């Protein structure tokens, strides 16, 4: 039984803390800007005009609300719980990422910023950022690790078409964490005119709370859609967790409903025991990175270790601080799915529902494959279908191509 506490209303506190997690662990150069951003965001949150603009772009530009779809064939296939897919992959640009980007770019405009930067892993956040930058006529620089550039070629090209400049990051393993380091370095150098659109619920306060609020539209819609369809709340919510933005977006509006069970699925890579994974909560320890305290993959000397995942968007050695807190509160259960399990669930979704999910999302589906069969049909399970898999064709062909007689894409 979950604790019936008022989890959602008060956090983070004024210092950006969720319990002992979160905070503002940044260089002094960035502090004044972060404080200003916090003020601007607080104002915007209560400004009807800002909210009106946000709602307008979420509707006519992003295409919200996204459907809550009853996945009849998947339900039959697993033979248990009733499975509903929250179709975030139908958003403009193909993932939940744009919910946040629209919000942040409006804020950037309001603050008079002249230049947008972002980090990206899978490229979905990069594409969403490049998209809103194009829409609002702002120059845009995207930092992306060289490993990720390799495995997400399609998105790299999309970003270029949208007018963004891609800066390849070679440091570390050339993945999301390294891209974030480099974006932070850019930001500290160009504080005056630059707005940093962080793509997940990480970074220093107010980012984790702000990104959560922009993504919470997912959960708010799910709530009213399920009430409309079934006259009651769902029994469980399942989402994949990289930094944790699609998960918190779905979970947040339900945190105070003790009967709604929540499951976050981390990337288990080759298995949490193998050491080759990206499961910060299941295989990490608390530490401080990228402006906040959270669970991290690190050695005993506090050096960050490399994450491993088949999916670029989950390949990050940390997790949003609110998830670290929800984990310790035991409000959300965090599990992991391996690369192989994700690939298997990916194919099931393609064939049963005619929906090609992102590899990130496939991790959530892998948990559904384990859990749904054990539950009765009355159990209403919502999965955040956070993104579509077109971007992953090269990677998937690399892993499964032989099976389909395809060598290389």
């Amino acid at each position, binding site marked *: 039984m979950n604790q019936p506490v008022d989890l959602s209303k008060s956090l983070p506190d004024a210092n950006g803390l969720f319990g002992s997690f979160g905070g503002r*662990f940044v260089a*002094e*150069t960035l502090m004044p800007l972060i404080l200003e951003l916090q003020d601007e965001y607080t104002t915007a949150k209560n400004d009807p005009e800002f909210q009106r603009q946000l709602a307008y772009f979420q509707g006519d530009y992003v295409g919200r609300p996204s459907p809550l779809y009853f996945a009849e064939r998947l339900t039959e296939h697993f033979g248990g719980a009733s499975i509903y897919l929250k179709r975030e992959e139908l958003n403009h640009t193909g993932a939940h990422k744009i919910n946040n980007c629209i919000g942040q770019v409006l804020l950037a405009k309001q603050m008079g910023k002249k230049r947008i930067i972002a980090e990206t892993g899978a490229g979905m956040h990069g594409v969403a950022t490049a998209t809103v930058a194009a829409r609002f006529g702002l120059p845009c620089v995207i930092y992306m690790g060289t490993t990720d550039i390799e495995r997400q070629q399609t998105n790299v090209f999309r970003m270029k078409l949208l007018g963004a400049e891609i800066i390849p990051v070679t440091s570390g393993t050339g993945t999301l964490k390294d891209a974030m380091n480099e974006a932070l370095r850019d930001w500290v150098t160009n504080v005056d005119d630059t707005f940093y659109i962080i793509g997940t619920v990480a970074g220093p306060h107010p980012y984790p709370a702000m990104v959560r609020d922009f993504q919470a539209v997912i959960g708010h819609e799910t709530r009213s859609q399920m009430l409309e369809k079934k006259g009651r709340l769902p029994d469980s919510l399942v989402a994949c967790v990289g930094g944790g933005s699609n998960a918190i977006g779905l979970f947040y509006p339900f945190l105070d409903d003790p009967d709604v069970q929540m499951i976050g699925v981390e990337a288990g890579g080759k298995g949490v025991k193998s050491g080759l994974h990206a499961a910060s909560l299941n295989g990490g320890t608390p530490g401080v990175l990228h402006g906040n305290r959270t669970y991290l993959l690190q050695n005993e000397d506090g*050096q960050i270790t490399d994450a491993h995942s088949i999916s670029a968007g989950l390949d990050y050695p940390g997790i949003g601080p609110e998830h670290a807190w929800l984990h310790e509160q035991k409000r959300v259960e965090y599990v992991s799915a391996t690369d192989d399990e994700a690939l298997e669930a990916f194919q099931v979704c393609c064939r049963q529902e005619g929906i090609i999910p992102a590899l990130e999302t496939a991790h959530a589906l892998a948990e559904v494959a384990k859990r749904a069969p054990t539950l009765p049909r009355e159990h209403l399970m919502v999965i955040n279908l956070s993104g579509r898999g077109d971007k992953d064709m090269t990677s998937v062909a690399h892993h499964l191509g032989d099976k389909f007689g395809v060598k290389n894409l």
Partner: protein
Amino acid sequence: MSIVHSNTMPDTVNQAMNHSPRIEQCFAALKQQNRPALVSYLTAGDPDADTSRRLLHGLPSAGVDIIELGMPFSDPMADGPAIQKAALRALNNGQTQAKTLEMVRHFREENSTTPIVLMGYYNPIFCYGVERFLADAARAGVDGLIVVDLPPEHDEELCTPAAQHSIDFIRLATPTTDAKRLPKVLANASGFIYYVSVAGVTGGSAPTSERLESSVAKLREHTELPIAVGFGIRTAEQAATIGRFSDAVVVGSALVDCIENANTPDEAVERVHGLVSELAESVRACREVEERMEEQLSV
């Protein structure tokens, strides 16, 4: 207690000994000589433990007044490529927090006067355990800490506990630190203030000295602590210019580049100490012209 520090003591903290005598004595002595301090930055364990030790031990005789020793971190967000690579070289060769503290202890066996300030990021300290780290650092002979990602908003993490161990917490002030924020930045600062000359990462572009001079002057209106200037200072000439109006000049990436560009450990040691000597000579002479002019005027 000295005049220099009396204004900045937070009254809640033990008045007897909550700052490093070495740093205070160093600046007092340099004030007598009317010259700025030369502060060097090297990453502990770069390029390897042995060479790093030789580099460290030779710094005072080459002319360094205050030593900043970097604690390598895998994700140095505030550093440019030179210091990023230095951290990687050190970590790849097995450097740890414990080994860095051991280096300081070893150095103290032969040098009891040159202040050592450990510089880095919070996570390796947090993982070592704050109390254990401070106790071990104090015992090893560490005088101060510069932790880039701990702004005053997080003073309870390390700054306040450090005072209990008489370790100075050296605060960074930057071009973005406005008048409204400055008192907060200075409130619990001790040792000296490190003015970051440009908004950016280490090893970036050089600051323009006119703007810098007025920034340092403004800072002086708010603090009696000595003011060091760093970021982007590479040459003896720049050090001299900045040393005319600051109490210390910090050179880091230029020294670290000497290690990167050397083909052998011996060459690294030679190049680093060579550049230090040049810088030392230049900071020692930088106010002489003014002195002579003042003498002439007063005659």
